[in-house]
């Protein structure tokens, strides 16, 4: 029975990973930027939730728009006026640039919010749904549901709206997209803005499930990266699958081998997938299959 509990914990964790990974994967797929600051942006969302909760008593779930909107704008400006300037440079320039942004943000958070671990604990934090031997905290269930819902909404956005289709078109063929009147500089900025906004929401939800500190930015980015690798770039359904696989693998391996090797195992899986199949488990190039 305990194995069922472990699996369930993995799936619930996986929903969160899907949300943090989907934006990262979208940016990578559309703009070919690996945003190493993704985890730091997510933590900004966590601090927004903490701030609203501590000083104004705002329910953490109601603070989601307040982390989405500012980080959406932040992401837009960052891409439009900074990353777009170097988007054609060698790829590791962009890696180093986003890492520079990460260092800046992490140090910014450390300076203003201190390096201490913080947590957001509303009154209902301890309550759980109990079915037989299985315990599911309500908060984790809600976080999972919101993550899945947002990920599906993103999928709808990409498939149904003009902007969404423009994003996909740009990722497929940037020159052709320009010919039909799409401005790639704007599309890149919007893509990055969506990713940052979603990262912010993911961060807010993260603050509800565990204690956090600025030093966790790197490990969040790493997980976003693994989700993208597992699921294939820019694919929403891939991110869902990748997130849930990662969640299950992590909880299972900490249960079987021990908590202290959790990261090493996650990393080993990432390197293995990279070496065996760099295009991800779903194994197709970004949106290329949509074209045909």
């Amino acid at each position: 029975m305990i194995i069922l509990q472990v699996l369930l914990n993995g799936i619930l964790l996986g929903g969160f990973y899907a949300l943090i990974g989907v934006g990262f994967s979208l940016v990578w797929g559309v703009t070919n930027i690996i945003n190493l600051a993704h985890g730091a942006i997510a933590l900004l969302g966590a601090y927004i939730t903490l701030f609203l909760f501590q000083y104004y008593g705002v329910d953490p779930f109601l603070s989601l728009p307040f982390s989405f909107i500012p980080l959406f704008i932040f992401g837009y400006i960052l891409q439009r006026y900074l990353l777009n300037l170097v988007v054609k440079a060698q790829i590791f320039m962009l890696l180093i640039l986003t890492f520079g942004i990460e260092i800046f943000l992490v140090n910014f958070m450390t300076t203003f919010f201190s390096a201490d671990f913080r947590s957001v604990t509303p009154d209902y934090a301890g309550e759980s749904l109990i079915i037989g031997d299985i315990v599911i905290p309500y908060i984790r269930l809600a976080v999972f549901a919101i993550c899945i819902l947002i990920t599906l909404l993103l999928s709808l956005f990409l498939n149904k709206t003009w902007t969404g289709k423009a994003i996909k078109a740009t990722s497929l063929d940037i020159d052709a997209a320009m010919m039909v009147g799409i401005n790639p500089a704007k599309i890149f900025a919007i893509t990055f803005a969506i990713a940052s906004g979603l990262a912010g929401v993911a961060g807010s939800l993260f603050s509800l499930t565990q204690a956090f500190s600025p030093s966790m930015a790197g490990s969040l980015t790493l997980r976003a990266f693994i989700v993208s690798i597992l699921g294939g770039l820019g694919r929403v359904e891939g991110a869902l699958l990748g997130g849930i696989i990662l969640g299950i693998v992590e909880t299972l391996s900490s249960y079987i081998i021990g908590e202290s090797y959790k990261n090493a195992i996650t990393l080993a899986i990432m390197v293995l997938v990279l070496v065996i199949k760099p295009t991800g488990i779903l194994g197709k190039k970004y949106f290329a299959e949509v074209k045909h």
Partner: protein
Amino acid sequence: MKKSVILFFIFIAILVILPFLVSGYWLRVLTQTFMFAAIATGSNIIIGFTGYPAFGNIAFFGIGAYVTGVLMTKYNFSFLLTLPLCALSGFLIATLLGLPLLRLKGHYFAIATIGVMEAIKEIVDNMTEITGGGMGLTLPIMEGEPAYIYKFFYYAILLIMLLTIAVAFLIFRSKFGYALRAIRIDEDAASVMGINTSLFKTISWAISGALVGIAGGAYAYWLTYIDPSTVFETSYSVKMFAMILLGGGTTVLGPMIGAFILELVSEFVWSKFIEIHGMILGMLIILIVIFIPKGLFETFKGGFSFRKIIINLRENKL
């Protein structure tokens, strides 16, 4: 080229005399700068010469530090004897990792090296019996006066830096170096021309790993205390990359020059603005990438001008 060689030797001569003129504080700062110059120059063999962005090359630094640390504390090795073993372990581990990982390109390779670095860090963290785990490892303190110890490490790490530069220079000038550049420019074409690309890439990474490993070993004894988070430090990777970018990765001396500029600037910033030091470092890296993505050497060949900066900006814009 000749002028730069003469300048280089004058520069080294000044560095050799310097310990008799400056305070212990500056000796420490300069020793640290030499260390970064060695790491950047050593890593540049795979990053700049071969064109494989080994972001996590600091892994070999950590490995070297732990080889020296473990051998000195558990097996009573003398310091100098551990250094060749640091090089050997860096060389072997890079060879083993190179065979699968060097098949990856660009982003994938960069991220895989970060992954490997983090994984090695976790393993070291968990091998508590040998490495002391998260509690770290305290090395035997060197005997002698503090002034003597300062000078010892100053000259030792200066020598390591010079050795690294010499190796990089020999590679740069050799047929092997030409082959590496051919791989950077067009790997398929290099392969068609009869270059065994996977062998050459692996050797280049192994040499790079060996050199960075030696720097790590010296650092461990200098610091006398190491733990996984200080020697497998991601921000060192970033600094190293920024140094290579700043100086230019296609040259031998570029990374060293980058190291001197960045390290001295960040030391200055650190002493003036302790609180926001990290933020300024981040800003500095962002500015380097945006304004001089080709490095100082390439950008300002034949004189400084703002026009060149503008050209750089236009070239990489969307």
